[in-house]
């Protein structure tokens, strides 16, 4: 509530901060960049996560446990550590460029960093484990006999996947998309480090307003905007499908 109040009262009462959205040149660009990066991150993370979750569910018990351990370990590593590891790998003289150069695929180093590509790589890498978890839970609760029934009725593997498996994992996909998208919106460290100040996203912009330029009103307005954005998204999702099924309620 404090934030809402701040967003209409600082520096002077009124909707001046919100008007900024349309008047300033930078703000719409930053918001657009944020949304675009978040959407791409979500698409990539959930697709990759889907493949991973599928592989995990269908692996043997021993491999499955090992994969789950790796997944959980990645949660324990600080985001700062992971982002700086990418710095080592992706820099102009980073490992990836060195190797590509060594095997002769490239002659000039590829700019993996200080642009959107770098931010995307870092964010997708961070988000994939989050994308996997809801999908994994969803896939593990599926009745395998339903897939057997599909094959028994004459469906090929591809038909079974697209007509039965994919629709049945829809709640998992929606949960995964929501989780990754909302987390991506608030991403701060990775864009700052891998974007090298060139890819400005809302969360980073808020922190700049808060800590450096001290325009708390603008910061509060953007924070409120993001909050509303997330709420609107949940509401829209809820209209398309019951969120209770996404968050583990009974399916019927």
């Amino acid at each position, binding site marked *: 509530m404090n934030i809402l109040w701040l967003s209409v009262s600082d520096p002077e009462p009124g909707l001046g901060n919100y008007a900024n959205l349309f008047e300033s040149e930078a703000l719409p660009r930053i918001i657009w960049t944020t949304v675009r990066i978040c959407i791409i991150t979500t698409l990539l993370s959930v697709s990759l996560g889907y493949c991973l979750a599928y592989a995990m569910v269908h692996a043997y018990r021993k491999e499955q446990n090992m994969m789950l351990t790796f997944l959980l370990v990645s949660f324990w590593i600080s985001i700062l550590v992971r982002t700086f590891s990418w710095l080592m790998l992706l820099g102009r003289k980073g490992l990836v460029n060195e190797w590509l150069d060594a095997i002769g695929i490239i002659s000039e180093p590829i700019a993996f960093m200080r642009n959107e590509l770098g931010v995307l790589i870092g964010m997708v890498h961070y988000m994939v484990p989050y994308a996997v978890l809801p999908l994994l839970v969803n896939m593990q609760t599926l*009745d395998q*006999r*339903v897939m*057997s*029934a*599909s*094959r*028994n*009725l*004459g*469906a*090929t593997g591809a*038909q079974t996947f697209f*007509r*039965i498996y994919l*629709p*049945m994992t*829809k709640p998992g996909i929606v949960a995964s998309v929501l989780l990754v998208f909302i987390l991506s919106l608030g991403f701060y460290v990775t864009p700052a480090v891998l974007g090298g100040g060139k890819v400005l996203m809302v969360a980073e912009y808020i922190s700049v307003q808060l800590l450096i330029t001290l325009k708390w009103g603008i910061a509060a307005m953007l924070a409120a905007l993001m909050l509303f954005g997330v709420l609107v998204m949940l509401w829209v999702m809820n209209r398309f499908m019951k969120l209770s099924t996404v968050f583990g309620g009974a*399916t*019927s």
Partner: protein
Amino acid sequence: MSETTQGALQIKNLRKMFGTFCAVDDISLDIQKGEFLTLLGPSGSGKTTLLMMIAGFLDISAGDIALDGTSISNTPPEKRNFGMVFQGYALFPHMSVRDNIGYALSVRKTPKADINKRVDEMLDLVQLQDFADRKPGQLSGGQQQRVALARALCFAPPVLLLDEPLGALDKKLRVEVQEQLKDIHKRVGTTFIYVTHDQEEALSMSDRVVIMRDGAVEQVGTPKELYERPQSEFAASFLGKSNFLRTSDGTHALRPEKIDLAPTGTGKTTPRMSGTIRSVTYFGSMQRIMVDTQAAGELEVDIDSWRNPEPFVEGQAVDLMWEDHAVVRLERTES
């Protein structure tokens, strides 16, 4: 009405190993076209494993399965064209009843009009015309069971496999569905292979019953043959109840309802044994009386309630009588 000309299944020396465990051990069966065959056995007897091998979901370790003389051992399940009703039905939860039933035709790229026509026929068969647009989650257990049946029969398979299809239904509904199943079997003429651990289902529906035990066939026969002429103690006690009389020439089975009981000295025929009543349990139409005898230990006797207006009481001395043909000598005795 017979919908296919195929449906005779030959199973030869079939074996399934899980590691060193033998789940199905050298089973051979000849199943006639249009037959209602039941695989009956306790859990762990290998009946579901056998069914899954026939469906193609489990590889066979040795032996062969043939449909009308052609081996199908290496045919994947989606190419076998066998219908199957799964335990728990395994309906597609996101599809309507109509789409569930039409699925087999739809994946075969049948024209839409033909699918609709056929699905309507199937909805008639299982009497679910009014539920075509519902989702499976909105149906009762009995209705879901019928959808599963219609879905499995929609593409006119030569063989229908049923894996404990009535397991999830309550007892009253189960009897009703048994009647419907029998009726549908008669109408479509498809070979039914039915797995159950319920002896009543096996007796009331099947043309032939295969009693399974520890992965092997214990005895095969019509329900009447199995009930009247059990070959082993296991067959006698798994299909119905039985007393066992051990004499010098082997073990004999004696069904509880074939023994007559009378207070000592009042029997109409010569008593075979005498004893005292240990307990009486009343079941309405009949009463189950446990009698301690000198000659054969404890015997179970089922007496129709109406025949004995004078109730038997615990501790009463009684004579036991039975006809000669009531006693069946078992060909195989337990070691």
